[in-house]
């Protein structure tokens, strides 16, 4: 009897531990192989410990350029999203206009659509306007694709800032734009960081969009370069592939930890989704 009870208490711990191991083992390969001189596809403790794979990644000018382009696309599109979505969300949060609920629902509807489905016509459009292979146009498309969700998040954050503060600013003669910039923005820094981190992470990991819209090898961001590296050398240089993957994953992990406290707020807003 006592034994049975003990098992009952231990069982959840055992199942959760097994799940935890299942989630970690595949990633462990990336960590070990990146330091292993004779890395294979199987997880092995790096007996021949080396930093060579890491130095090779950090000294390869093509890979470094790909990281810079990745930062340009991700940071650029997330800044565009923060500014444009804050402007659009502000009146939606503050004004009592007719059909406001329908507008907000339409934005939510758009945020749900799979952008994968429109990539073929977007490619045609880019070819038609001679925009294909343009990093700026790709940046704008990435911004637009994540914009509906950005507006939705931003509106929730602006809703949480009391309107009374701006009203006193308006009485003092400030315009709406000044009210937004001087009163609302400083108060909703957590919200802005959430949107920034969220969209940066999304763009950083986005492979399909630059894969379709960018053709020149020297314009490709890290998400696509890493795939080409895998196709060309990945089958042989496992250690370098692992190190490349590791380096490419680190910014997202750091951003996650920086944004964790903001993220949980943002997650609550998107998860509870009280419109």
């Amino acid at each position, binding site marked *: 009897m006592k034994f049975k009870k003990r098992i009952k208490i231990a069982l959840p*711990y055992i*199942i*959760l531990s097994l*799940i*935890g191991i299942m*989630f*970690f*083992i*595949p*990633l462990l390969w*990336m960590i070990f*192989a990146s330091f292993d001189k004779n890395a294979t*596809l*199987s*997880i092995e403790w790096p007996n021949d410990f080396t930093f060579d794979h890491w130095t090779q990644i950090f000294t390869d000018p093509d890979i470094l350029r790909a990281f810079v382009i990745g930062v340009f696309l991700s940071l650029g599109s997330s800044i565009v999203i923060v500014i*444009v979505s804050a*402007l*659009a969300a502000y*009146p*939606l949060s503050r*004004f009592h*206009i007719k059909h406001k609920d329908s507008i907000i*629902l339409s934005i*939510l*509807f*758009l945020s*749900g*659509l*799979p*952008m*994968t*489905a*429109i990539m*073929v*016509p977007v*490619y*045609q*459009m880019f070819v038609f306007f001679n925009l294909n292979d343009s990093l700026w146009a790709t940046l*704008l*498309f990435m911004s*637009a*694709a994540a*914009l*509906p969700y950005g507006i939705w998040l931003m509106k929730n954050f602006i809703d949480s800032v009391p309107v009374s503060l701006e009203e006193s600013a308006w009485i003092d003669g400030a315009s709406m734009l000044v009210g937004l910039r001087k009163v609302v923005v400083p108060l909703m820094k957590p919200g802005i960081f959430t949107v920034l981190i969220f969209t940066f*992470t999304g763009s950083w990991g986005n*492979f*399909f969009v630059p894969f*379709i819209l960018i053709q020149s090898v020297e314009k490709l961001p890290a998400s696509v370069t*890493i*795939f080409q590296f895998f196709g060309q050398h*990945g089958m042989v240089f*496992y250690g370098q592939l692992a190190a490349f*993957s590791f380096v*490419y*994953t680190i910014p997202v*992990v750091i951003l*996650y930890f920086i944004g964790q406290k903001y993220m949980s707020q943002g997650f609550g807003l998107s*998860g509870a*989704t009280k*419109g």
Partner: protein
Amino acid sequence: MAQRRALRNNPYIKTLIFGSPAIILMLLFILGPIIMTILFSFTDIALTGAAAKEFEFVGFENFSRMFKDPSFKTSVINTIIFLVCSALIGQQVVGFLIAYLMKGKARPFRSLIGLLVLAGWITPEIVVAFVWFAFLSDDGTLNTILEFVGMEPVAWLLNFPMVSVVFVNIWHGAAFCMLMYQAALDDIPQEIEEAAKIDGANAWHRLWRITLPMIKGSAVTNMVLVTLQTLGVFTLIFALTGGGPGNKSTTLPLFMYDEAFVNYQLGYGTAISLVILLLGILLSLLYIRFLKTDD
């Protein structure tokens, strides 16, 4: 002058002015392409050659070709398997199981397991594909383990491509469901469970009679949302199996890519896009419908 000021203070005009950058971006890059998807799916437009510049409307030809195409049928079936097994069931069950078992456990243990599960979610899709390629390949970790315990190695990606991509997508997405269900479970008032406990209901009964009915609303909304997100998955399958071997793990997004960019049949590829888009529209409408009733 007064009239102009009144116009400037009109909330509709102001909303329009403030929203104009967003409206322009979304019209140009989302609504425009959606309309083009509908139009081009009725043409014979191609990526190269004569049909690239001078394409013609061909009526329902793309669609009749699609319904006769055995590859289309395969990719529809694969898409359904992928959505149902990984999004609708897999991620939900795993996410719920983790959230449910974690309830009331010691803090450090909870944080550690939560962190491990979240690691699979934070990792970019392309890296997820690589690490699982290593794990499942012929000389990979899984076969090393199997050989260690005296079993025959299996060519997972070749012989079980759909099982592999479904499993990997569960691994990648379970954390999102875990967070959703943790929030939903935290919302259940403790008194209700306590009362049921005192009334003698065992853990199994409490789960089926109290916990599950109480989180039903958020569970349904979450199911639709995750299915919607999974519909657009391309990178994970593309980098892990490439849709193969043959077309054994080709879902609709991969089929669309193959026809449009590998076979240069943009018109046909766009017709496939339209199918994905219509599915997305349907699911998205369902999603906002559930959101409204969830309130």
